């Protein structure tokens, strides 16, 4: 493998590299189960934090501080002790509404065209975690839609609704959007290496703001990349072995 090849990031690595800096300075980042990309980003950010960041990963035997049963994550978030969390969606729309339930006219619920697993904790955590980062690897008009068919959790709320939390950004395999709460609208913040602004437009079902100049998503420097592909990959493999194998190959398997 040439030096150039080594520096080329996979889709997953691009997303990890985009998410990690958004966590800088936070005290406690929590990650849901089956979220290997955010989990990897959180572990990378933690390693770069100089020991000030705590990362809790549901489903991890070793990064999991919870001893009060399944409710503790949600109680902990309700107490204001979780600074960042990650949500995805079968559909995500331009107002940052997310749909984890299914597609089709809501009037025909629950007979969906396509059924997703369900809302998990989104209808709560999206409201109370200050920095919720949306992620979805598949960036197509099918996943990023004009308006979701079912709102598992809304992107914004009326002023009288208690909502210390909400969407901060949306990270896909193609780009990063930031979310502007007052306008309830995404802005294209950066495109990953090799992705064009036009390509993002063509693949996105919702409207969003585009600044005159859209930078490339900053790549990690060599030492950070080495850290990710070394120690972090090994830690990730403990909780997400299938993901680690796919992303970093056999060398990571324990």
């Amino acid at each position, binding site marked *: 493998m040439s030096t150039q090849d080594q520096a080329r990031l996979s889709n997953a690595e691009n997303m990890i590299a985009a998410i990690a800096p958004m966590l800088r300075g936070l005290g406690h980042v929590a990650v849901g*189960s*089956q979220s290997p990309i955010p989990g990897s980003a959180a572990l990378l950010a933690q390693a770069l934090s100089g020991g000030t960041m705590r990362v809790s990963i549901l*489903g991890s*035997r070793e990064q999991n501080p*919870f*001893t*009060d*049963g*399944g*409710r503790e994550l*949600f*109680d902990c978030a*309700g107490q204001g002790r979780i600074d960042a969390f990650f949500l995805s969606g079968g559909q995500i729309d331009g107002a940052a509404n997310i749909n*984890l*339930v299914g597609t089709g006219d*809501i009037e025909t*619920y*629950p*007979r*969906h065209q396509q*059924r*997703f*697993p*369900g*809302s*998990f*904790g*989104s*209808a*709560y*955590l*999206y*409201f*109370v975690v200050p920095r919720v980062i949306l992620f979805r690897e598949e960036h197509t008009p099918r996943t990023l839609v004009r308006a979701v068919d*079912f*709102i*598992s*959790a*809304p992107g914004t*709320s*009326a002023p*009288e*609704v*208690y909502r210390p939390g909400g969407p901060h950004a949306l990270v896909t395999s193609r780009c990063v959007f930031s979310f502007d709460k007052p306008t309830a609208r995404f802005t294209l913040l950066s495109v990953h290496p090799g992705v064009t602004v036009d390509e993002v437009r063509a693949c996105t079902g919702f409207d969003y703001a585009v600044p005159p100049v859209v930078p490339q998503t900053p790549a990690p420097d060599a030492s950070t990349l080495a850290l990710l592909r070394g120690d972090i990959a090994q830690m990730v493999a403990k909780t997400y072995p*299938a993901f680690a194998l796919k992303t970093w190959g056999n060398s990571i398997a324990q």
Partner: protein
Amino acid sequence: MQAGRPVDPHPQHKVPSPARIDLRLPPAKKTPKYCRYPTGKGASIGTEKNMLTSTPPVISVGALAARIANGAKVVLPPDYSGCAMAVVAELMRRRVRDLHLIGAPVIGFQADQLIGAGCVAGIEAAAITLGEHGLAPRFTAALKRGEIEMWDATCPAIHAGLQASEKGVPFMPMRGLIGSDLLRVRPDWKVIDNPLAEDGKRDPIAIIPAIRPDIALFHAAKADAHGNIWIGIRRELMLMAHASKSTLVTVEEIVEGNLLDDPALAAGTISSLYVTALAVAPHGAAPIGLADCYDADGAALAGYATAARTADGFRDWLDRHLERALVPA
């Protein structure tokens, strides 16, 4: 059964009225005969405490499953907690009908298998998923055909509903939810104005009715001879037991002594007070794993996920599975 919107999935629990007073002492009994604890000089009464009390019976897996009647409302743990898969197999063998399943708060293989076997009328959960093995295929197919009722929830709402029953209150307030379509499909959830909000300030807040299952069913590593169950950090199992009218448990083994006597083990123990009956089922959570006991059998789970993609595939899987999973009645 057709999907629909029943008015109230969680009718309130009725507590019976107190009996009338009776001041007479029971007929005299010869002491040792009626006291289960040893009365000899050397016997230590204190350490035999639970022998004094009504202890849940230890029965067979089949007999345990037989306590789950058609139409029962059963709360089940997620795949990362303790799943009583041996009992699930028995329920499918018996072709139990019209179960109302509650995932605490999400649910996986247990629900998909029971739905595929035609045992389920409705399901309430924050998610139904086979995790890394993908969507739950029999659930998805049944929903599409309108064969089961669906009560979509969100994790903390299930916890709140169970905690309401645990505390004996009719509802619990919960933040979030407002603006979610979950409120549209859950007419039993309401939004009220926070009665403690500052004067003149609106503060809408959701309230979640109590969830009171008929039965909590789960698997744990061990019980003791008194019927206390060790669950470690899996305290959603404790919440399920507290919230339910009765609790059925399978365990890997029954150990000697009393779990409550050891301060370390007591911290992770559910008292037999909450346990209706238990059965010994070695490897009773397989092919799902049991934390600190055995890992999930990934090949078996993947095999299920593949087979269950079609109704025929599921039926073949079920035939093979029930043959393998035969337990003494």
